[in-house]
Protein backbone atom coordinates (compact mmCIF):
# COMPACT_ATOMS: atom_id res chain seq x y z
CA UNK A 1 0.00 0.00 0.00
CA UNK A 2 1.32 3.42 -0.85
CA UNK A 3 1.26 6.03 1.88
CA UNK A 4 2.32 8.92 -0.32
CA UNK A 5 1.54 9.15 -3.99
CA UNK A 6 2.52 12.27 -5.94
CA UNK A 7 1.90 12.66 -9.65
CA UNK A 8 3.33 15.77 -11.30
CA UNK A 9 2.59 17.63 -8.09
CA UNK A 10 3.07 21.40 -8.25
CA UNK A 11 2.99 23.49 -5.08
CA UNK A 12 3.37 27.25 -4.84
CA UNK A 13 4.79 29.31 -2.01
CA UNK A 14 3.09 32.58 -2.78
CA UNK A 15 3.83 32.84 -6.47
CA UNK A 16 7.00 30.79 -6.32
CA UNK A 17 6.71 27.22 -7.61
CA UNK A 18 8.63 25.50 -4.83
CA UNK A 19 7.61 22.14 -6.28
CA UNK A 20 7.55 22.15 -10.05
CA UNK A 21 6.19 18.68 -10.73
CA UNK A 22 7.08 15.89 -8.32
CA UNK A 23 6.49 12.22 -9.06
CA UNK A 24 7.01 10.08 -6.00
CA UNK A 25 5.52 6.99 -4.42
CA UNK A 26 6.29 5.99 -0.85
CA UNK A 27 5.08 2.67 0.50
CA UNK A 28 4.02 1.85 4.02
CA UNK A 29 6.90 0.97 6.30
CA UNK A 30 9.50 2.61 4.10
CA UNK A 31 12.22 4.94 5.30
CA UNK A 32 12.95 7.59 2.71
CA UNK A 33 15.84 10.01 2.73
CA UNK A 34 15.19 13.27 0.89
CA UNK A 35 18.29 15.04 -0.26
CA UNK A 36 19.15 17.86 -2.55
CA UNK A 37 20.66 21.32 -2.44
CA UNK A 38 19.10 24.13 -0.44
CA UNK A 39 16.04 25.48 -2.19
CA UNK A 40 15.43 22.18 -3.95
CA UNK A 41 11.98 21.95 -2.39
CA UNK A 42 12.57 19.41 0.40
CA UNK A 43 10.74 21.36 3.09
CA UNK A 44 7.87 22.22 0.75
CA UNK A 45 7.55 18.56 -0.20
CA UNK A 46 7.27 17.62 3.48
CA UNK A 47 4.69 20.38 4.05
CA UNK A 48 2.70 19.21 1.06
CA UNK A 49 2.67 15.62 2.33
CA UNK A 50 1.67 16.88 5.78
CA UNK A 51 -1.49 18.43 4.34
CA UNK A 52 -0.38 21.97 5.11
CA UNK A 53 -0.37 23.11 1.48
CA UNK A 54 -2.98 22.88 -1.18
CA UNK A 55 -1.47 21.35 -4.32
CA UNK A 56 -1.63 23.79 -7.22
CA UNK A 57 -1.89 21.00 -9.78
CA UNK A 58 -1.13 17.34 -10.17
CA UNK A 59 -2.24 14.42 -8.05
CA UNK A 60 -1.43 14.24 -4.35
CA UNK A 61 -2.68 11.33 -2.26
CA UNK A 62 -1.51 10.81 1.31
CA UNK A 63 -2.85 8.03 3.57
CA UNK A 64 -5.63 7.44 1.08
CA UNK A 65 -6.79 11.08 0.99
CA UNK A 66 -6.78 13.33 -2.06
CA UNK A 67 -5.22 16.51 -0.71
CA UNK A 68 -7.05 18.91 -3.03
CA UNK A 69 -9.94 18.87 -0.55
CA UNK A 70 -9.68 20.96 2.62
CA UNK A 71 -11.46 18.30 4.69
CA UNK A 72 -9.05 15.64 3.42
CA UNK A 73 -6.06 17.76 4.31
CA UNK A 74 -7.49 18.16 7.80
CA UNK A 75 -7.94 14.41 8.24
CA UNK A 76 -4.42 13.74 7.02
CA UNK A 77 -2.87 16.34 9.29
CA UNK A 78 -3.96 14.66 12.49
CA UNK A 79 -2.43 11.33 11.41
CA UNK A 80 0.91 12.83 10.41
CA UNK A 81 3.78 14.18 12.50
CA UNK A 82 5.85 16.99 11.09
CA UNK A 83 9.09 18.07 12.71
CA UNK A 84 9.96 21.42 11.18
CA UNK A 85 12.69 23.96 11.78
CA UNK A 86 10.68 25.78 14.46
CA UNK A 87 10.00 24.12 17.80
CA UNK A 88 6.21 24.29 17.65
CA UNK A 89 6.24 24.89 21.41
CA UNK A 90 4.93 27.78 23.52
CA UNK A 91 7.95 29.59 24.89
CA UNK A 92 6.29 30.72 28.10
CA UNK A 93 4.88 27.32 29.04
CA UNK A 94 6.94 24.64 30.74
CA UNK A 95 8.07 21.42 29.08
CA UNK A 96 5.40 19.48 30.98
CA UNK A 97 2.64 21.96 30.10
CA UNK A 98 3.61 21.96 26.44
CA UNK A 99 3.66 18.17 26.21
CA UNK A 100 0.35 17.86 28.02
CA UNK A 101 -1.24 20.57 25.87
CA UNK A 102 -0.22 18.96 22.59
CA UNK A 103 -1.29 15.53 23.85
CA UNK A 104 -4.70 16.82 24.88
CA UNK A 105 -4.97 18.78 21.61
CA UNK A 106 -4.52 15.47 19.79
CA UNK A 107 -7.66 14.29 21.53
CA UNK A 108 -6.15 12.15 24.29
CA UNK A 109 -7.87 11.88 27.67
CA UNK A 110 -6.12 13.48 30.61
CA UNK A 111 -4.90 10.17 32.01
CA UNK A 112 -3.76 8.86 28.65
CA UNK A 113 -2.04 12.16 27.92
CA UNK A 114 -0.08 11.97 31.17
CA UNK A 115 0.90 8.36 30.58
CA UNK A 116 2.09 8.99 27.04
CA UNK A 117 3.96 12.19 27.83
CA UNK A 118 5.88 10.41 30.61
CA UNK A 119 6.66 7.63 28.17
CA UNK A 120 7.79 10.03 25.46
CA UNK A 121 9.91 12.01 27.88
CA UNK A 122 11.79 8.97 29.05
CA UNK A 123 12.22 7.74 25.47
CA UNK A 124 13.77 11.06 24.49
CA UNK A 125 15.69 11.27 27.73
CA UNK A 126 14.24 14.63 28.70
CA UNK A 127 15.29 14.81 32.35
CA UNK A 128 12.68 15.27 35.10
CA UNK A 129 14.24 18.50 36.29
CA UNK A 130 13.28 20.13 32.98
CA UNK A 131 9.58 19.31 33.29
CA UNK A 132 8.76 22.46 35.21
CA UNK A 133 11.11 24.72 33.28
CA UNK A 134 9.68 27.18 30.76
CA UNK A 135 10.73 26.26 27.23
CA UNK A 136 12.51 29.59 26.68
CA UNK A 137 15.05 28.63 29.34
CA UNK A 138 16.01 25.44 27.50
CA UNK A 139 18.97 24.90 25.20
CA UNK A 140 18.29 24.36 21.50
CA UNK A 141 18.98 20.64 21.85
CA UNK A 142 16.60 20.25 24.78
CA UNK A 143 13.90 22.08 22.87
CA UNK A 144 14.34 19.80 19.91
CA UNK A 145 13.94 16.76 22.14
CA UNK A 146 10.80 18.27 23.63
CA UNK A 147 9.40 18.92 20.14
CA UNK A 148 10.10 15.32 19.21
CA UNK A 149 8.50 14.08 22.43
CA UNK A 150 5.36 16.09 21.59
CA UNK A 151 5.22 14.23 18.27
CA UNK A 152 5.90 10.78 19.77
CA UNK A 153 2.90 11.27 22.04
CA UNK A 154 0.61 11.43 19.02
CA UNK A 155 1.72 8.04 17.61
CA UNK A 156 1.50 9.16 14.00
CA UNK A 157 1.33 6.86 10.99
CA UNK A 158 3.56 9.01 8.83
CA UNK A 159 6.63 10.84 10.12
CA UNK A 160 7.94 13.82 8.19
CA UNK A 161 11.23 14.94 9.68
CA UNK A 162 12.87 18.07 8.31
CA UNK A 163 16.55 18.03 9.28
CA UNK A 164 15.90 16.19 12.55
CA UNK A 165 19.58 15.98 13.47
CA UNK A 166 20.17 19.71 13.26
CA UNK A 167 21.21 21.27 16.56
CA UNK A 168 21.53 18.00 18.43
CA UNK A 169 24.59 16.56 20.13
CA UNK A 170 25.84 13.03 19.55
CA UNK A 171 23.40 11.44 22.02
CA UNK A 172 20.56 13.45 20.57
CA UNK A 173 21.38 12.33 17.06
CA UNK A 174 21.52 8.72 18.16
CA UNK A 175 18.14 9.19 19.78
CA UNK A 176 16.64 10.52 16.54
CA UNK A 177 17.94 7.45 14.74
CA UNK A 178 16.52 5.19 17.42
CA UNK A 179 13.22 7.02 17.13
CA UNK A 180 13.10 6.46 13.39
CA UNK A 181 13.79 2.80 14.10
CA UNK A 182 10.91 2.74 16.61
CA UNK A 183 8.54 4.34 14.13
CA UNK A 184 9.36 1.86 11.40
CA UNK A 185 9.15 -1.05 13.83
CA UNK A 186 5.67 0.14 14.82
CA UNK A 187 4.63 -0.06 11.19
CA UNK A 188 5.04 3.66 10.48
CA UNK A 189 6.51 5.35 7.44
CA UNK A 190 9.32 7.87 7.77
CA UNK A 191 10.47 10.58 5.39
CA UNK A 192 13.64 12.37 6.48
CA UNK A 193 15.22 15.34 4.84
CA UNK A 194 18.80 15.52 5.92
CA UNK A 195 22.28 16.56 5.01
CA UNK A 196 23.65 13.95 7.40
CA UNK A 197 23.91 11.34 4.68
CA UNK A 198 26.29 9.03 6.52
CA UNK A 199 24.14 8.98 9.59
CA UNK A 200 20.88 8.30 7.80
CA UNK A 201 22.59 5.75 5.60
CA UNK A 202 22.83 3.48 8.63
CA UNK A 203 19.05 3.19 8.54
CA UNK A 204 19.32 1.92 4.96
CA UNK A 205 16.72 4.23 3.52
CA UNK A 206 15.62 4.68 -0.03
CA UNK A 207 17.16 7.88 -1.33
CA UNK A 208 15.22 10.44 -3.29
CA UNK A 209 17.08 13.42 -4.72
CA UNK A 210 15.29 16.70 -5.33
CA UNK A 211 16.52 19.54 -7.48
CA UNK A 212 14.62 22.48 -8.94
CA UNK A 213 11.46 21.37 -7.22
CA UNK A 214 11.36 17.94 -8.84
CA UNK A 215 12.70 14.46 -8.21
CA UNK A 216 15.79 13.91 -10.33
CA UNK A 217 16.36 10.21 -9.87
CA UNK A 218 13.12 8.86 -11.18
CA UNK A 219 9.74 8.26 -9.57
CA UNK A 220 10.75 5.05 -7.84
CA UNK A 221 14.07 6.37 -6.60
CA UNK A 222 17.22 4.39 -6.89
CA UNK A 223 18.70 1.88 -4.53
CA UNK A 224 19.98 4.52 -2.19
CA UNK A 225 23.41 4.85 -0.78
CA UNK A 226 23.88 1.51 0.77
Amino acid at each position, binding site marked *: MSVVELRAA*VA*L*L*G*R*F*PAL*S*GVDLTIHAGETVLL*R*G*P*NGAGKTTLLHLCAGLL*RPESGGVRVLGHDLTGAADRRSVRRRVALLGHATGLYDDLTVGENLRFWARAAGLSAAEADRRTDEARSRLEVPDRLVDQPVHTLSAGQRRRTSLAALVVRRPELWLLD*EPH*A*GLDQTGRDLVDALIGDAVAAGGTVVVSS*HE*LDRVAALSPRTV*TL*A*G*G*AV*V*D*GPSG*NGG*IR
Partner: protein
Amino acid sequence: MAEEPTITASTRDTTGSRGSRLLGVATLVGLAVLGVLAFVLTDPDVRIHPSTGDEFGQFDAVRMLYVHVPLAAMTYLAYGLCAVASLGVLIRRTPWWDVTAHAAAEVGTVFCGLVLVTGSIWGRPVWNTWWEWGDVRLMTTLVLFLMFAGYLALRRTTGDPRTVSRRAAVVALIAVLDLPLVNRSVEWWENRTLHQQSTLGELKIEDLTLFTLMLGFLVLGMVLAWLLLHRFRVGWLERAALDHSVAAAIAERRGETPDEELRRAVGDSPAAREGFDENDRDGDPEAGRP
Protein backbone atom coordinates in the same frame (compact mmCIF):
# COMPACT_ATOMS: atom_id res chain seq x y z
CA MET B 1 -18.90 39.72 -18.31
CA ALA B 2 -16.20 37.11 -17.93
CA GLU B 3 -13.58 36.66 -20.55
CA GLU B 4 -12.63 33.21 -21.60
CA PRO B 5 -10.42 31.88 -18.86
CA THR B 6 -7.84 31.04 -21.48
CA ILE B 7 -6.86 34.61 -22.29
CA THR B 8 -3.23 35.43 -21.80
CA ALA B 9 -1.54 38.71 -21.20
CA SER B 10 -0.32 38.88 -24.76
CA THR B 11 -3.60 38.35 -26.57
CA ARG B 12 -5.29 41.45 -25.17
CA ASP B 13 -3.67 44.71 -24.36
CA THR B 14 -6.78 46.74 -23.63
CA THR B 15 -9.66 46.51 -21.23
CA GLY B 16 -11.99 47.98 -23.82
CA SER B 17 -14.13 46.05 -26.25
CA ARG B 18 -16.74 47.03 -28.80
CA GLY B 19 -19.51 46.39 -26.26
CA SER B 20 -17.90 48.33 -23.45
CA ARG B 21 -17.11 51.26 -25.77
CA LEU B 22 -20.74 51.36 -26.81
CA LEU B 23 -21.78 51.23 -23.17
CA GLY B 24 -19.30 53.97 -22.37
CA VAL B 25 -20.65 56.31 -25.05
CA ALA B 26 -24.23 55.59 -24.02
CA THR B 27 -23.31 56.27 -20.40
CA LEU B 28 -21.73 59.62 -21.28
CA VAL B 29 -24.80 60.66 -23.24
CA GLY B 30 -27.00 59.48 -20.37
CA LEU B 31 -24.98 61.50 -17.87
CA ALA B 32 -25.35 64.61 -20.02
CA VAL B 33 -29.12 64.15 -20.31
CA LEU B 34 -29.37 63.46 -16.59
CA GLY B 35 -27.39 66.61 -15.89
CA VAL B 36 -29.69 68.74 -18.01
CA LEU B 37 -32.81 67.21 -16.51
CA ALA B 38 -31.63 67.33 -12.92
CA PHE B 39 -30.05 70.74 -12.91
CA VAL B 40 -32.11 72.67 -15.50
CA LEU B 41 -35.44 71.20 -16.51
CA THR B 42 -36.82 69.92 -13.22
CA ASP B 43 -38.34 72.35 -10.76
CA PRO B 44 -36.78 73.17 -7.42
CA ASP B 45 -38.58 71.83 -4.38
CA VAL B 46 -40.65 74.75 -3.18
CA ARG B 47 -43.78 74.25 -1.14
CA ILE B 48 -46.10 76.73 0.51
CA HIS B 49 -46.98 76.23 4.12
CA PRO B 50 -50.80 75.84 4.24
CA SER B 51 -51.38 78.09 7.25
CA THR B 52 -48.56 80.63 7.31
CA GLY B 53 -48.12 80.91 3.56
CA ASP B 54 -44.31 80.73 3.97
CA GLU B 55 -42.21 79.07 1.33
CA PHE B 56 -40.44 75.95 2.49
CA GLY B 57 -38.85 72.83 0.99
CA GLN B 58 -35.45 71.78 -0.24
CA PHE B 59 -35.28 74.35 -3.06
CA ASP B 60 -32.39 73.71 -5.45
CA ALA B 61 -30.76 71.23 -3.09
CA VAL B 62 -33.28 68.60 -4.14
CA ARG B 63 -31.37 68.28 -7.42
CA MET B 64 -28.59 66.50 -5.58
CA LEU B 65 -30.99 63.66 -4.79
CA TYR B 66 -31.21 62.67 -8.47
CA VAL B 67 -27.61 61.55 -8.07
CA HIS B 68 -27.45 60.75 -4.36
CA VAL B 69 -30.28 58.22 -4.23
CA PRO B 70 -29.24 56.23 -7.33
CA LEU B 71 -25.62 56.26 -6.11
CA ALA B 72 -26.79 54.72 -2.85
CA ALA B 73 -28.76 52.06 -4.72
CA MET B 74 -25.73 51.22 -6.88
CA THR B 75 -23.58 50.99 -3.75
CA TYR B 76 -25.92 48.30 -2.43
CA LEU B 77 -25.71 46.53 -5.76
CA ALA B 78 -21.92 46.61 -5.92
CA TYR B 79 -21.47 45.46 -2.33
CA GLY B 80 -24.14 42.80 -2.82
CA LEU B 81 -22.20 41.53 -5.81
CA CYS B 82 -19.04 41.58 -3.72
CA ALA B 83 -20.75 39.45 -1.07
CA VAL B 84 -21.96 36.90 -3.61
CA ALA B 85 -18.52 36.75 -5.21
CA SER B 86 -16.88 36.40 -1.78
CA LEU B 87 -19.05 33.39 -1.07
CA GLY B 88 -17.88 32.10 -4.43
CA VAL B 89 -14.27 32.59 -3.36
CA LEU B 90 -14.80 30.56 -0.19
CA ILE B 91 -16.77 27.79 -1.85
CA ARG B 92 -15.38 27.49 -5.37
CA ARG B 93 -11.92 29.01 -4.93
CA THR B 94 -11.79 30.08 -8.58
CA PRO B 95 -9.96 33.25 -9.60
CA TRP B 96 -13.05 34.52 -11.45
CA TRP B 97 -14.93 35.05 -8.19
CA ASP B 98 -11.91 36.60 -6.56
CA VAL B 99 -11.40 39.17 -9.31
CA THR B 100 -15.13 39.93 -9.31
CA ALA B 101 -15.21 40.43 -5.53
CA HIS B 102 -12.22 42.75 -5.64
CA ALA B 103 -13.64 44.77 -8.54
CA ALA B 104 -17.07 45.08 -6.91
CA ALA B 105 -15.59 46.14 -3.57
CA GLU B 106 -13.38 48.76 -5.14
CA VAL B 107 -16.08 50.29 -7.34
CA GLY B 108 -18.61 49.98 -4.51
CA THR B 109 -16.33 51.91 -2.19
CA VAL B 110 -15.97 54.73 -4.72
CA PHE B 111 -19.78 54.87 -4.97
CA CYS B 112 -20.18 54.69 -1.20
CA GLY B 113 -17.73 57.58 -0.80
CA LEU B 114 -19.72 59.60 -3.35
CA VAL B 115 -22.93 58.82 -1.48
CA LEU B 116 -21.41 60.30 1.67
CA VAL B 117 -20.06 63.34 -0.17
CA THR B 118 -23.24 64.11 -2.14
CA GLY B 119 -25.30 63.53 0.98
CA SER B 120 -23.14 65.91 2.95
CA ILE B 121 -23.39 68.61 0.27
CA TRP B 122 -27.16 68.14 0.17
CA GLY B 123 -27.42 68.14 3.96
CA ARG B 124 -25.70 71.49 4.34
CA PRO B 125 -28.63 73.60 2.99
CA VAL B 126 -31.42 71.17 3.91
CA TRP B 127 -30.43 69.94 7.37
CA ASN B 128 -28.27 72.97 7.97
CA THR B 129 -25.24 70.79 8.74
CA TRP B 130 -22.53 68.96 6.80
CA TRP B 131 -22.71 66.05 9.15
CA GLU B 132 -25.42 64.83 11.50
CA TRP B 133 -24.13 62.55 14.26
CA GLY B 134 -27.56 61.49 15.38
CA ASP B 135 -28.56 60.06 12.02
CA VAL B 136 -28.54 56.26 12.02
CA ARG B 137 -28.40 55.88 8.26
CA LEU B 138 -25.46 58.24 8.05
CA MET B 139 -23.62 56.30 10.76
CA THR B 140 -24.29 52.86 9.28
CA THR B 141 -23.21 54.09 5.84
CA LEU B 142 -20.02 55.53 7.26
CA VAL B 143 -19.27 52.24 9.03
CA LEU B 144 -19.89 50.40 5.77
CA PHE B 145 -17.46 52.70 3.98
CA LEU B 146 -14.81 52.24 6.69
CA MET B 147 -15.17 48.46 6.69
CA PHE B 148 -14.61 48.33 2.95
CA ALA B 149 -11.71 50.75 3.29
CA GLY B 150 -10.24 48.07 5.58
CA TYR B 151 -11.08 45.44 2.97
CA LEU B 152 -9.15 47.32 0.30
CA ALA B 153 -6.23 47.79 2.70
CA LEU B 154 -6.21 44.06 3.38
CA ARG B 155 -6.19 43.45 -0.37
CA ARG B 156 -3.01 45.49 -0.70
CA THR B 157 -1.03 43.68 2.00
CA THR B 158 1.72 41.26 1.20
CA GLY B 159 0.99 37.63 1.83
CA ASP B 160 0.12 34.47 -0.02
CA PRO B 161 -2.40 35.68 -2.64
CA ARG B 162 -4.73 32.78 -1.89
CA THR B 163 -4.66 33.52 1.84
CA VAL B 164 -5.33 37.20 1.19
CA SER B 165 -8.26 36.45 -1.10
CA ARG B 166 -9.90 34.08 1.41
CA ARG B 167 -9.45 36.49 4.29
CA ALA B 168 -10.75 39.38 2.22
CA ALA B 169 -13.80 37.27 1.43
CA VAL B 170 -14.50 36.82 5.16
CA VAL B 171 -14.09 40.57 5.75
CA ALA B 172 -16.51 41.35 2.91
CA LEU B 173 -19.12 38.89 4.16
CA ILE B 174 -19.04 40.44 7.63
CA ALA B 175 -19.11 43.99 6.21
CA VAL B 176 -22.23 43.38 4.13
CA LEU B 177 -24.10 42.41 7.31
CA ASP B 178 -24.26 46.20 7.67
CA LEU B 179 -26.14 46.57 4.35
CA PRO B 180 -29.60 45.67 5.68
CA LEU B 181 -28.98 48.00 8.63
CA VAL B 182 -28.25 50.87 6.25
CA ASN B 183 -31.28 50.04 4.18
CA ARG B 184 -33.78 49.44 6.95
CA SER B 185 -32.44 52.04 9.40
CA VAL B 186 -34.96 54.61 8.20
CA GLU B 187 -37.84 52.34 9.19
CA TRP B 188 -36.29 50.82 12.31
CA TRP B 189 -35.14 54.04 13.89
CA GLU B 190 -37.74 56.47 12.59
CA ASN B 191 -37.06 59.05 15.25
CA ARG B 192 -33.27 58.71 15.07
CA THR B 193 -32.80 59.78 11.48
CA LEU B 194 -33.31 62.84 9.35
CA HIS B 195 -33.48 60.67 6.24
CA GLN B 196 -36.94 60.43 4.85
CA GLN B 197 -38.66 57.13 4.38
CA SER B 198 -38.92 55.79 0.89
CA THR B 199 -41.49 57.71 -1.11
CA LEU B 200 -41.05 55.77 -4.31
CA GLY B 201 -43.50 52.99 -3.50
CA GLU B 202 -46.36 55.39 -3.01
CA LEU B 203 -45.50 57.52 -6.04
CA LYS B 204 -45.63 60.72 -4.07
CA ILE B 205 -43.24 62.30 -6.49
CA GLU B 206 -44.40 63.94 -9.69
CA ASP B 207 -43.86 63.09 -13.33
CA LEU B 208 -40.68 64.82 -14.48
CA THR B 209 -39.14 64.44 -11.05
CA LEU B 210 -39.90 60.74 -11.06
CA PHE B 211 -38.63 60.35 -14.60
CA THR B 212 -35.38 62.11 -13.74
CA LEU B 213 -34.88 59.96 -10.69
CA MET B 214 -35.53 56.81 -12.72
CA LEU B 215 -33.11 58.02 -15.36
CA GLY B 216 -30.64 58.58 -12.54
CA PHE B 217 -30.96 54.93 -11.54
CA LEU B 218 -30.48 53.81 -15.14
CA VAL B 219 -27.52 56.06 -15.92
CA LEU B 220 -25.68 55.43 -12.66
CA GLY B 221 -26.37 51.73 -13.15
CA MET B 222 -24.61 52.06 -16.49
CA VAL B 223 -21.71 53.89 -14.85
CA LEU B 224 -21.48 51.06 -12.33
CA ALA B 225 -21.58 48.41 -15.04
CA TRP B 226 -18.94 50.20 -17.10
CA LEU B 227 -16.60 50.65 -14.15
CA LEU B 228 -17.12 47.06 -12.97
CA LEU B 229 -16.44 45.73 -16.44
CA HIS B 230 -13.19 47.56 -16.78
CA ARG B 231 -12.05 46.98 -13.22
CA PHE B 232 -12.79 43.29 -13.67
CA ARG B 233 -10.82 43.15 -16.89
CA VAL B 234 -7.86 44.92 -15.31
CA GLY B 235 -7.95 42.40 -12.47
CA TRP B 236 -8.28 39.54 -14.91
CA LEU B 237 -5.33 40.74 -16.97
CA GLU B 238 -3.25 41.11 -13.82
CA ARG B 239 -4.20 37.58 -12.89
CA ALA B 240 -3.37 36.31 -16.35
CA ALA B 241 -0.01 38.06 -16.25
CA LEU B 242 0.74 36.51 -12.86
CA ASP B 243 -0.37 33.05 -13.99
CA HIS B 244 1.80 33.53 -17.00
CA SER B 245 4.77 34.39 -14.81
CA VAL B 246 4.06 31.41 -12.55
CA ALA B 247 3.97 29.10 -15.55
CA ALA B 248 7.26 30.59 -16.69
CA ALA B 249 8.65 30.20 -13.19
CA ILE B 250 7.67 26.53 -13.11
CA ALA B 251 9.38 25.97 -16.44
CA GLU B 252 12.43 27.86 -15.29
CA ARG B 253 12.52 26.00 -12.00
CA ARG B 254 12.40 22.70 -13.78
CA GLY B 255 15.31 24.00 -15.79
CA GLU B 256 17.25 24.52 -12.57
CA THR B 257 17.57 20.78 -12.45
CA PRO B 258 21.17 19.97 -13.29
CA ASP B 259 21.69 19.20 -16.92
CA GLU B 260 21.00 15.83 -18.35
CA GLU B 261 24.51 14.66 -17.66
CA LEU B 262 24.38 15.37 -13.95
CA ARG B 263 20.91 13.96 -13.81
CA ARG B 264 22.20 10.68 -15.18
CA ALA B 265 25.20 10.86 -12.93
CA VAL B 266 23.06 11.33 -9.83
CA GLY B 267 21.05 8.34 -10.84
CA ASP B 268 23.94 6.09 -11.84
CA SER B 269 27.33 6.83 -10.47
CA PRO B 270 28.18 7.01 -6.79
CA ALA B 271 31.15 9.23 -7.57
CA ALA B 272 29.05 11.84 -9.29
CA ARG B 273 26.53 11.66 -6.52
CA GLU B 274 29.26 12.40 -4.04
CA GLY B 275 30.23 15.42 -6.11
CA PHE B 276 26.64 16.58 -6.11
CA ASP B 277 26.51 16.37 -2.36
CA GLU B 278 29.75 18.29 -2.10
CA ASN B 279 28.14 21.18 -3.97
CA ASP B 280 25.14 20.86 -1.81
CA ARG B 281 27.18 21.20 1.36
CA ASP B 282 29.02 24.21 -0.02
CA GLY B 283 25.78 26.02 -0.48
CA ASP B 284 24.50 25.13 2.96
CA PRO B 285 25.25 27.64 5.68
CA GLU B 286 24.58 25.00 8.29
CA ALA B 287 26.87 22.43 6.69
CA GLY B 288 29.84 23.31 8.88
CA ARG B 289 28.00 22.85 12.15
CA PRO B 290 29.26 20.17 14.51
